């Protein structure tokens, strides 16, 4: 495939293209696109270009040197605005680099811009951005998915070679599937969250979005690693290298719930058949609480959101609205500058954590997390991965679900269990429907089993 990290790396090494020309090409494309994939294409790229040129000249270039990469708008890059696509941070400039950006800088990558997203990463369509939805490159009347919809659209439309997103319930994999690109949710704790704006701290993970599995692997290997600045970061040497058993598990009864796109299910079956033809054994297994992960998630996430977003108070960051007492300023600023979904989740979080409901909701959801994790671990002792479609349907229309939060939440049915259990998962394109909208399939692997997921992903790429 052309225009991958691998492709341009070879071109840069051979001198067929220069860093400056490559960056100029991508900046021009990003600036002339009308998808609303970017919140901003950076104009101060000179220092990054010179750094990459120097690395190429003195033989210290890495696979990412000179490669234009897009950043989701919630990942801090010092000296640049990072707004989480919220009005409350419209004028906030990052004071420091996230660890992921530091690692990209050290590798010589070029951060060319920040991409549109659902406000504070809450949403599945990018429609919750305060700056308008991003359009799906395959059909501009459809959503690109979310919350990393801008990153997904940018990569799919070749407005960036690859991108970083963040995944709390599917926010890398679901837009990856909707836009026809590869997205990885790494094992929680393998990629530092330092400098990622916190939404759900026990769930958020930064991960790669790319055109090929190999590119996602390259990017993952650059951004991973222990970081003392993130106290949930895990030691770097925990990577497992399980051998391929050629055994995949499908959660039993998962398709009986209804609400699935027929053509998508057929595509999933075709992909499963192709894997069987390669010698894979694919079996239905009991995962009784797989589908309960979504309900647990929508208790845990508002609880964490209401706590994490308390810092946006009109005093310390971003913008301030109103006069009067401190309480008046807090309420006016937050009321005016948070969008409807953020407000909903703050209020819900306040509710589930309040006296009388804490045991019924939050503690039960936390217990459910433990149960789901044990169920996944038991199954993954005998199988390489749990195999599902990434989403129940292909990309839906802009405006279609915006007034029905619960129906929007159901987009995350297959993706959320991995977050809840801290397992890694990979979404890979698996074809398109008659209208040209992409489908994706997902592998949920054992903790630290990223290498196994890349192996499985490459098999899917080869049978396509």
């Amino acid at each position, binding site marked *: 495939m052309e225009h991958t990290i691998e492709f341009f790396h070879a071109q840069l090494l051979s001198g067929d293209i220069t860093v400056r020309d490559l960056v100029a090409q991508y900046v021009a494309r990003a600036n002339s696109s009308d998808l609303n994939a970017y919140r901003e294409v950076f104009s101060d790229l000179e220092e990054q270009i010179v750094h990459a040129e120097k690395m190429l000249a003195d033989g210290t270039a890495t696979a990412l040197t000179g490669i234009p990469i897009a950043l989701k708008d919630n990942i801090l890059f010092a000296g640049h605005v990072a707004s989480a696509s919220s009005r409350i941070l419209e004028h906030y400039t990052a004071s420091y680099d996230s660890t992921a950006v530091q690692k990209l800088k050290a590798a010589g990558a070029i951060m060319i811009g920040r991409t549109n997203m659902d406000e504070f990463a809450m949403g599945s369509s990018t429609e919750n951005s305060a700056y308008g939805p991003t359009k799906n490159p395959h059909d501009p009347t459809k959503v690109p998915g979310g919350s990393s919809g801008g990153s997904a659209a940018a990569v799919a439309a070749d407005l960036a070679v690859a991108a970083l997103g963040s995944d709390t319930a599917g926010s890398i994999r679901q837009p990856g599937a909707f836009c026809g690109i590869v997205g990885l949710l790494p094992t929680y704790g393998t990629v530092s969250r330092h400098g990622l704006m916190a939404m759900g701290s026990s769930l958020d993970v930064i991960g790669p979005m790319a055109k090929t599995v190999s590119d996602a692997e390259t990017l993952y290997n650059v951004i991973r690693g222990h970081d003392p600045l993130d106290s949930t970061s895990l030691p770097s040497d925990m990577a497992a290298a399980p051998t391929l058993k050629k055994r995949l598990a499908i959660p039993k009864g998962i398709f009986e719930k209804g609400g699935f796109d027929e053509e998508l299910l057929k595509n999933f079956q075709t992909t499963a058949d192709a894997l069987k033809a390669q010698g894979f054994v694919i079996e239905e297994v009991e995962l009784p609480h797989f589908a*309960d992960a979504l309900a647990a998630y929508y208790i845990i996430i508002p609880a964490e959101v209401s706590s994490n977003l308390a810092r946006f108070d009109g005093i310390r960051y971003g913008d301030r609205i109103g006069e009067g007492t401190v309480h008046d300023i807090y309420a006016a600023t*937050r009321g005016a500058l948070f969008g409807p979904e953020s*407000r909903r989740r703050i209020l819900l979080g306040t*509710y589930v954590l309040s006296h009388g409901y804490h045991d019924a909701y939050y503690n039960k959801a936390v*217990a459910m997390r*433990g*149960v789901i994790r044990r169920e996944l671990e038991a199954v993954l002792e005998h199988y390489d991965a749990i195999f599902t479609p990434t989403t129940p349907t292909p990309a839906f229309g802009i405006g279609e679900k915006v007034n029905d939060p*619960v129906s929007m939440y159901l987009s995350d049915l297959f993706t959320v269990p991995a977050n809840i259990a*801290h397992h890694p998962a990979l979404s890979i394109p698996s074809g398109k429907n008659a209208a040209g909208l992409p489908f994706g399939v997902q592998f949920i692997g054992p903790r630290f089993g990223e290498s196994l997921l890349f192996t499985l992903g490459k098999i899917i790429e080869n049978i396509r």
Partner: protein
Amino acid sequence: MANPMNVEQVKYLANLARLAVPEDQLESVAHDMEAIIGFVDQIQKASLDTMGAEEYEKENIFRDDMVTPIVPAHDLIEAAPQHQDHFVKVTKVIE
């Protein structure tokens, strides 16, 4: 289990959350929250025969007390919406 979400309850939660919700939106916010609570209520029905399942293993992370470069305080204060003479400006807190 859950009480029906109503306008009064939304007002109560909005005050706790320090979040102004305009009067004309209280009804629709209550409606949406009711739907979401209805959805997550399925967790009440889930049979958790392993109730009390342990949460994730957690451990305290300590760092050595070392002098390292940090973000200059000046930059952090500049990030505040209102600041003056290297102080964040806050309205009067004590009456």
